[in-house]
């Protein structure tokens, strides 16, 4: 089979793995590199596909042969598709040639399980070893950790890769059993994550480690997904969780699934970047996020007593809870306020506040800037919860 066909098959097989960022601290790059490549402090996307996703990494599988039969995966053993593998040398050479042409920023390597997990992981490590030590590549490598591999292999992978990841797929053992009967959440995923965490503590893996959930395949709720995600951030020092809407057997992906995926990302960002607490993420009675309202707006509408906030006086933490004000614009507001008092919406717009969203929730020098009517016009009745659990944290 020609290389072009292999790239087509093994690229297609890897496309559902999500890996947004290819950046990490530039200081992790060797100061005087001998070989090729550098790490970039800002993510570089070298192309974009017609689905609006960026192509930053050479994302392929080592092989799409797999002994597992995971329901969400197109490489499951029961699926009738062409099975093929890259040799480590062939894959390494192709990647380096792509890199030299500035097509990609780094390598993302995953695999089906051919024979045993340990055998396949050895092949993957061999590929990365050639890239690092034969071609002397200093840039970004994201390596997937297969479930059930030897602890020594995790250590070896951590020495070679910039970032490791192991996919949780589902938030609970019960949900995981429904979609991947062969996998054990604790033994195959949580325990290896602890080993990756140890490697990170040793100063390896400048890009840290990540995970991915399949959303909507096992009837799990958003609350379960977020609870597991937050637990992983706290207990396993996870850098980032990705969410991928499940595409069912007739290859259909509904608009609702995509919106749900988007809401999960928003909730995740509120926790990581806006420092919201778990209790501030609002779910409905079924444990799902509101598809019509983003989680930040949903929280703000539940707290009519808190808003509007005065932009010239409120703390950074309070400003972050205003829809339309993010970490960057919030920081700017607080910094500029030391020397300048804001007087109108135009000035707020200039510093990056999204006026359309923020205006109903703020005052400028005591003057109201908008009304909540446009949000309230929805036929749906919003519930109000004025209990202590939704109060803003104390100002810093």
């Amino acid at each position, binding site marked *: 089979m020609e290389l072009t066909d292999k790239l*087509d098959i093994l690229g297609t097989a890897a496309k559902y793995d999500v890996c947004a960022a290819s950046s990490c601290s530039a200081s992790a790059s060797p100061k005087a590199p001998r070989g*090729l490549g550098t790490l970039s402090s800002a993510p570089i996307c*070298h192309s974009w596909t017609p*689905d609006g*996703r960026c192509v930053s990494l050479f994302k392929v599988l080592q092989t799409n042969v797999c002994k597992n039969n995971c329901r969400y995966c197109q490489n499951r053993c029961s699926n009738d598709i062409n099975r093929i593998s890259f040799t480590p040398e062939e894959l390494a050479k192709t990647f380096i040639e792509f890199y*030299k*042409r500035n097509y990609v920023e780094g390598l993302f390597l995953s695999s089906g399980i051919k024979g045993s997990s340990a055998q396949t992981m050895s092949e993957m490590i061999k590929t990365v070893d050639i890239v690092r030590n034969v071609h002397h590549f200093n840039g970004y490598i994201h390596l997937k950790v297969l479930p059930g591999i030897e602890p020594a292999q995790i250590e070896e992978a951590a020495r070679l890769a910039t970032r490791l990841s192991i996919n949780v797929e589902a938030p609970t053992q019960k949900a995981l059993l429904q979609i991947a009967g062969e996998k054990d959440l604790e033994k195959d995923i949580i325990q290896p994550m602890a080993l990756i965490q140890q490697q990170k503590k040793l100063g390896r893996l400048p890009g840290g480690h990540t995970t991915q959930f399949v959303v909507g395949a096992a009837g799990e709720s958003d609350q379960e997904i977020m609870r597991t995600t937050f637990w992983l951030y706290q207990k396993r020092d996870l850098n980032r969780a990705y969410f991928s809407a499940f595409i069912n057997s007739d290859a259909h992906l509904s608009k609702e699934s*995509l919106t749900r995926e988007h809401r999960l990302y928003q909730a995740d960002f509120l926790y990581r970047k806006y420092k919201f607490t778990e209790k501030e993420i609002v779910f409905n009675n079924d444990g799902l996020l509101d598809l019509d309202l983003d989680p930040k707006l949903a929280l703000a509408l539940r707290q009519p007593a808190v808003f509007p906030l005065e932009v010239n006086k409120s703390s950074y933490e309070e400003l972050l809870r205003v829809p339309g004000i993010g970490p960057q614009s919030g920081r700017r507001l607080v910094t500029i306020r030391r020397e300048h008092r804001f007087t109108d919406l135009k000035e707020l717009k200039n510093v990056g506040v999204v006026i359309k969203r923020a205006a109903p929730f703020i005052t400028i020098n005591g003057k109201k800037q908008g009304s909540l009517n446009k949000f309230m016009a929805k036929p749906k009745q919003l519930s109000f919860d004025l209990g202590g659990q939704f109060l803003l944290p104390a100002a810093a």
Partner: protein
Amino acid sequence: MQKLYFENTPESFFNAVLQKHLQGNAHFLERRQLVNSADLFEWNNAALLCSNGTSPEARSDQVDHVLLEQYLHQCGGKDPLGKSEAFQDLLVELFFALHFRPENIALLEKAVFQALTKGCMFVTEKVSDEASAFMKMSWAVRREIHNAKAFMRLLPVEDQQVLFGEFILKHDTAPFILKHFMRRFPGYAIILLAGQKAWIAKNNEISETSIDRKNLRLPVLRDEFTREWLAFYQSQYIHQRRNIKLMKSHVPTKYWQYMDEMQLDIVQTGVSPRTGQR
């Protein structure tokens, strides 16, 4: 009208603005071209530091302190050196804005003047319309550098340690771009072609030359790996998520000519060549 010259550095420009305001407005500012290529290279090194997010601390003392004191005494305003971090941020933005073409000295001058009267953060955080326009200049330069890092394609010239690339450059950004690729491909000579000019980066030096397009035979930026790349690119498309508008918003169409994948039907139609579905 008397001319006040400045060189291609933020400190030099800053000093020139101070001087102009001290000496009265019957002066105008003009850029003096650096003739010494060693100086130019030195500044490009500093530029690389800036573009990597490191503040150019080594150069902060080049602001004329006596002149600044004199200005503050005579005209009032805020001492920008009192908040050195904000001042460094301003210098970085000014550095990039000075590489914007066509240059708009009057706007740069207004931005520096606002920094002196209302504080550096007033400008870097874009509170006024002038500050916002100034920051847009800086960001346009940064964006062009970033776009070149992302969308410019390189072709290795066989058996020679040479990588050749072509791109559209509107601003004075070639040295920044070449420094990026020099770090990425040590040991390689990098040739960058843009418009009627070519830059050659070799052994840590950058030289610039004019070219005659009509008599120039350029290597075609394609080889057998182009075919492999196109196969890989198409494999990454998930047709259920088709969003061509979003893709187009990320890749300015002026760069499409350098990107082989953008010539594919899939980019226009969103029809997956594998499944025939859209």
